[in-house]
């Protein structure tokens, strides 16, 4: 790939990114502004104030300001990187998001890797043994897990491993009474295991089904027939002709799953009381913390965009055919 096409690619993506972020920012702002919830009431949390003080607060929160003006101010602040102050935590939104996301990214990254590897492995296993009991078992598993609510799967895992077997603590990112920064590595790790397990078990289903179907298709192709006639068989055949052909689309698909990963994290963090971005989003939504919720929505849109960008890039970088066609241009 030469420099020019790469620059063009990134330039195009950057423009798209800016337009998308603007659209998401305005769209989510309008949605929340239409809500009948009064920010002053939320801020006060039922505290008694005089009408004068209330008027000051209303002015501060911009009650009664026309919508276009409010959107304009919000976009100006956003351009300067100012997302406002969280109403629950009473600290800048950007700090809250940064703090919570650093906890979540470990969970999401681990689940992403495990679900990708496990899903691909199971898919290859099922595709290679098409029609056998292994294939059927994997198919039934994927079918069921895709229809099961992910938080319920999390609850089952919690019941089995934490309550019945007692191997892991129930909930909370760190033990009660210990600050999250003081927790030892093992304390963190032991609380990561079950949420990661849940997200991986749920997330592997689409990738496994996709890999299986692709492999079955590849195995019925002419070049596989030719390879067989040359005497190739077993794992060598799968490795040389099957996996090389299906790995790239599988990787791309896995990058495109960032949105589901985020959604899964929201639910699973709630089940395991894991103090990540998902749990914060729910708290912000339930307690009408509008600035924080807007910040998280924007942030999640960036997250999903990065996933899609990586998926596109994986095509450009990994696939030798695309590289070659560009060199020949």
């Amino acid at each position: 790939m030469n420099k020019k096409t790469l620059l063009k690619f990134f330039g195009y993506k950057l423009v798209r990114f800016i337009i998308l972020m603007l659209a998401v920012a305005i769209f989510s702002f309008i949605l929340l502004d239409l809500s009948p919830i009064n920010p002053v009431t939320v801020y006060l949390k039922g505290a008694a104030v005089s009408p004068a003080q209330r008027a000051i607060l209303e002015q501060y929160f911009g009650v009664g300001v026309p919508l276009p003006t409010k959107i304009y101010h919000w976009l100006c602040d956003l351009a300067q990187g100012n997302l406002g102050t969280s109403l629950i935590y009473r600290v800048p939104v950007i700090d809250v998001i940064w703090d919570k996301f650093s906890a979540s990214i470990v969970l999401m990254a681990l689940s992403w890797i495990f679900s990708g590897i496990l899903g691909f492995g199971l898919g290859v296993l099922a595709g290679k043994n098409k029609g056998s009991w292994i294939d059927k078992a994997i198919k039934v598993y994927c079918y069921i897990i895709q229809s099961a609510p992910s938080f319920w799967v999390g609850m089952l895992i919690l019941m089995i491993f934490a309550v019945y077997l007692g191997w892991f603590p129930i909930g909370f990112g760190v033990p009660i009474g210990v600050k999250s920064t003081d927790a030892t590595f093992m304390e963190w790790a032991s609380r990561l295991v079950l949420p990661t397990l849940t997200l991986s078990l749920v997330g592997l289903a689409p990738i496994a089904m996709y890999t299986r179907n692709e492999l079955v298709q590849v195995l019925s192709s002419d070049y596989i027939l030719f390879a067989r006639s040359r005497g190739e068989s077993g794992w060598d055949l799968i490795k040389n002709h099957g996996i090389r052909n299906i790995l790239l689309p599988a990787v791309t698909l896995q990058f495109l799953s960032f949105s589901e990963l985020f959604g899964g994290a929201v639910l699973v963090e709630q089940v395991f009381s894991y103090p990540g971005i998902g749990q914060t989003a729910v708290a912000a939504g339930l307690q009408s913390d509008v600035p924080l919720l807007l910040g998280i929505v924007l942030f999640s849109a960036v997250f999903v965009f990065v996933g899609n960008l990586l998926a596109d890039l994986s095509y450009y970088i990994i696939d030798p055919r695309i590289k070659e066609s560009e060199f020949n241009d």
Partner: protein
Amino acid sequence: MINRKRNNDKPHVLLPINLRTKTLLIIGLSVLVIASILVSSLFVGSIETNFVNANQLPSFEHLFGTDWMGRDMFSRTVAGLGLSLTVGFIASILSTCVSIFLGLFSSFNRIADEIVASIIDLFGSIPHILLIILVSIMFGGGTIGVIMGIGLTHWTPLARVLRSQVKEIKTEQYISLAENLGRSKVWIAMKHIFPLIISQIIVGVILMFPHAIMHEAAITFLGFGLPPHDPAIGVILSESMNYLSSGYWWLAFYPGLSLLIIVLLFDLIGENVEKLLNPETAQE
């Protein structure tokens, strides 16, 4: 998917029926199960509390056990499933209307098509669960918030399918003929395009249903919408979270399992209806 493979090769020994009859049978049975759950949920009424029977294991008397107030979990689950089905039903109709509207709107001209494409992109760029939370807050939360939140966010897959379908239909000659005859865009959309996408719409709606129900359970589990005393499946499950550490596994296990079965039934119906409407896919 599971049933599809089985009967292609040899006629079934026990039930000598062809694929079409079998497909109809599967659809009929699944609809019957779902309808019976929906009807019986109407008759559950108020569930009596009986503290003598609190926290009992599942038995013949209480199939799914009882909760901390001694309420029969089976009745609560049935009532909850009925509620989930109702919410899912309303939300699916809403979503379908949105996708039909956008699908037909995209047929007008290039700009309309671009607008529809960017709206779909916009909705796809935010994780679905956050989008539901946003919309439900916009409607002020509560039951209305949940219904609107689910109803106004599930149209994207169907709209995407319809849009590409419409693009294909628009290349047909009779469309340009109608345009040359001076027919309006709306007339063409209603008379020439809509009848051709009906089968897609039907399949799309049925496949939308399980997603809507799962998201309804998820969003009520998180605490949005339905009040805590309503026996929605999500509410039951989030309540049972408090009793997990006490080892009352049946409070969470059976309601979740019932939801799973309902979702599987809808998938089954969707696949089989697709087989009936597009017979060429049935022999795969």
